[in-house]
């Protein structure tokens, strides 16, 4: 039948060439991996059935690294070496990081790159994220039975260039082939788009633990186009917990809580919030000193307390509608993403604003990973043309250059569809200027000081010219992952300079290569060490068994035979003390062979003893 399997161009040639492609939601609190099997996107659980992998990494003694629940369990005993919420540190400098995180870990900064002190040494957020990604890759390999062809990794839509670059570097470090970085809301829309396959305009409302973002997308004839995106990086479910905790503190007249008590109060606030998603009232308990205090909270009270927070989420919602030039009633569907959207008040507020019931049939914690898996499957070429979705993402923040006086000249405005390239001409401001410094920034503000600095580089070799005569063409290029590269060229003489924008807050390529090399060497060393330990153990077990046998049955051997065994035993003991596991395995085999006859005679003797005094019929 193989002769008849002729496929159309663009279709995968044979079904058995299915490539293992995965989607990864690398979250602040939890991470997930999903894949498409039998045309259905599904989250891959670990061996014990857990679907969410807590985004926690623990560096223990002797280089043991744990990820997930095992790592989270170490948080209270070994807080400094247990790194949680590392996503908040990706592509960030020490000054960007909040006091909460600075207080929790020992941070150092070198060449603008943040590192956390751990018992295993200094670790960058990129390396820590790579551990999480590695755990997910291994989970996928174990479940799917082989090497992973490629992965789609999701990032928040508001992630700037430095954060995206850091995420891609982490994936490379984890040994993943990145098919695409995908914006989280786009992934969520894909998951629903595939589900319903209806065309129209969708709003994705994503309220996570610490951040909020909203995107508007249109799906037409298989093309998902992001029309606008906006967000609030300082607003999330945690703020709802804080509102409850503040209320409880006032109600109970609590003052001067210790940091530990504060965390306990926040944890019970969080439980109360979660309970109120299904119940109409709940009891919040708190141990103040020796006294157990309890408070009843109704859903109405909770909703009154958090009304202002919900209203804050509607500001970016309205912004995106204006940017997309749409009215609320023109939206065909609203997708809810993020655990915080389980709160009924979120569903109600969003539903009332858009005058339609929000879509929440898919688990809000899983929807992003499911969409990423679907896109990974498409990019790996596992599907035939018809049901492919093409995703056109946008850059969330404007890209620009520093001009004289610390002002920003925007080159690519936010919400531009990617990939995109833009060239703009500049000139020299001084006569005879031989070089030009370029400072690339990202952000919406007018002043360089208020934007994020992405990279600095220089264009050299400009021939002497009067002011205003040089024609310097600067080209910004953003690829489909949202990553920027910049080049500059003096057009009258052809002097050129290029930069892949990453040095400010990222790892250089050679650093990544060195880390990868180190991890391979490390993996090889680990493997050798394990082989050696196993060989030594096996040798010792054999030596012990022979020593016991000689003690019991030495009369079964003549002097010559005994001498051979004794010398082989001494040889094995000597070799076993060395580091060569191959030699140990060989010596163990030799001793095994030398004692074969002895073992056979002992077997005969045992059988003879067992048979003594029994008649033939009993044996048969």
């Amino acid at each position, binding site marked *: 039948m193989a002769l008849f399997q002729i496929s159309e161009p663009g279709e995968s040639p044979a079904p058995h060439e299915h490539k293992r492609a995965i989607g990864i939601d690398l979250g602040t609190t939890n991470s997930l991996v999903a894949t498409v099997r039998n045309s259905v996107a599904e989250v891959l659980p670990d061996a014990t059935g857990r679907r969410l992998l807590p985004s926690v990494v623990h560096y223990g003694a002797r280089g043991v690294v744990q990820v997930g629940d095992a790592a989270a369990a170490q948080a209270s005993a070994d807080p400094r070496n247990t790194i949680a919420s590392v996503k908040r540190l990706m592509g960030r400098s020490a000054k960007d990081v909040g006091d909460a995180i600075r207080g929790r870990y020992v941070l150092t900064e070198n060449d603008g790159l943040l590192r956390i002190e751990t018992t295993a040494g200094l670790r960058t957020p990129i390396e820590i994220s790579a551990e999480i990604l590695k755990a997910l890759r291994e989970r996928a390999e174990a479940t799917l039975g082989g090497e992973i062809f490629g992965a789609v990794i999701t990032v928040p839509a508001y992630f700037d260039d430095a954060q995206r670059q850091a995420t891609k570097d982490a994936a490379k470090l984890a040994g993943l082939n990145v098919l*695409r970085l995908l914006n989280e809301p786009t992934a969520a829309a894909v998951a629903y788009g595939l589900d319903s396959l209806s065309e129209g305009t969708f709003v994705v409302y994503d309220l996570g633990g610490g951040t909020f973002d909203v995107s508007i997308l249109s799906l*037409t*004839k298989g093309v998902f186009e992001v029309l606008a995106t906006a967000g609030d990086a300082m607003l999330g479910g945690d703020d709802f917990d804080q509102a409850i905790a503040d209320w409880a503190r006032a109600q109970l007249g609590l003052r001067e809580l210790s940091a530990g008590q504060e965390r306990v109060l926040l944890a019970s606030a969080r439980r109360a919030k979660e309970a109120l998603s299904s119940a109409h009232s709940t009891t919040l308990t708190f141990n103040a000193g020796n006294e157990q205090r309890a408070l009843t909270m109704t859903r109405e009270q909770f909703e009154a307390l958090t009304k202002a927070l919900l209203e804050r989420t509607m500001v970016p919602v309205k912004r995106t509608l204006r940017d997309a030039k749409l009215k609320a009633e023109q939206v065909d569907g609203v997708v809810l993403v993020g655990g915080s959207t389980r709160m009924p008040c979120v569903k109600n507020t969003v539903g009332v604003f858009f005058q339609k019931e929000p879509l929440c049939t898919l688990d809000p914690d899983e929807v992003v990973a499911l969409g990423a898996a679907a896109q990974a499957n498409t990019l790996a070429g596992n599907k035939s043309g018809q049901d492919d979705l093409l995703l056109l993402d946008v850059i969330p923040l404007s890209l620009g250059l520093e001009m004289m006086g610390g002002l920003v000249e925007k080159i690519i405005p936010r919400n531009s569809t990617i990939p995109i390239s833009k060239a703009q001409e500049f000139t020299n401001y001084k006569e005879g200027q031989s070089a030009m410094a370029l400072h690339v920034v990202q952000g919406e503000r007018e002043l360089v000081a208020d934007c994020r600095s992405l990279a600095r580089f220089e264009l050299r070799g400009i021939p002497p010219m009067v002011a205003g005569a040089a024609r310097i063409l600067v080209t910004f290029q953003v690829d*489909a992952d949202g990553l920027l590269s910049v080049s500059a060229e003096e057009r009258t003489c052809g002097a050129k300079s290029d930069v892949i924008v990453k040095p400010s807050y990222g790892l250089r390529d050679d650093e990544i290569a060195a880390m990868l090399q180190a991890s391979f060497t490390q993996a090889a060393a680990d493997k050798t060490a394990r082989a050696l330990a196993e060989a030594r153990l096996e040798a010792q077990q054999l030596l012990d068994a022979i020593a016991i046998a000689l003690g019991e049955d030495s009369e079964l051997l003549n002097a010559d035979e005994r001498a051979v065994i004794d010398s082989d035993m001494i040889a094995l003991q000597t070799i076993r003390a060395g580091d060569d596991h191959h030699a140990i395995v060989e010596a163990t085999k030799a001793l095994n062979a030398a004692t074969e006859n002895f073992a056979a005679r002992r077997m005969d003797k045992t059988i003879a003893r067992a048979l003594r005094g029994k008649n033939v019929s009993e044996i048969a």
Partner: protein
Amino acid sequence: MSAAAARALRSNWMQFFALFEIAAKFDINANALAAKFRTLQIESHPDKFASAADSVRRAAQQRSALINDAYKTLRDPVARAAYLIKNTCGADPFDERNTKMPLHFLHAQIELREEIAENCAAGNLQNLAGIAAKLEADQALLRAKITQTIDVNQDCAAAIDDLRQLRFLQKVASEIDDAVERLES
């Protein structure tokens, strides 16, 4: 885009219209433009070449970027008119040295700005929405005028005057958007 590509782009005037296979006119069908955009991206986007060689992917990225740039230019009336004027008359409609504006237009703008400022101070979102609606109607009138000056009369000087006014109104509209956002938050 390489410098060579940039040069090629300039030499091939009206390339954006050619790329979308439509006549180089100000009056275009927005829905047809959007449909063509999707078709072009389906053919060219680097995601369609995810497993192809690097050189193929780079070429796809360049073409996809060009399509995005063209679409962005053609779908926005101000950018589209500026592109047409640049390529037909060789004039830059937004030359900084040209500050000429009709007096009656400037008077009207001063009044409009005062009205916006008052309503922002009073936090009157409803009035601001009313001003935004009126601005949209004024822009529609200017667009109709530009269709006449460019597509029918091919009068560059008049088109530039109209376009400068249109851009002015577009900026005021986006300033109202920003003001509304500040009032909402």
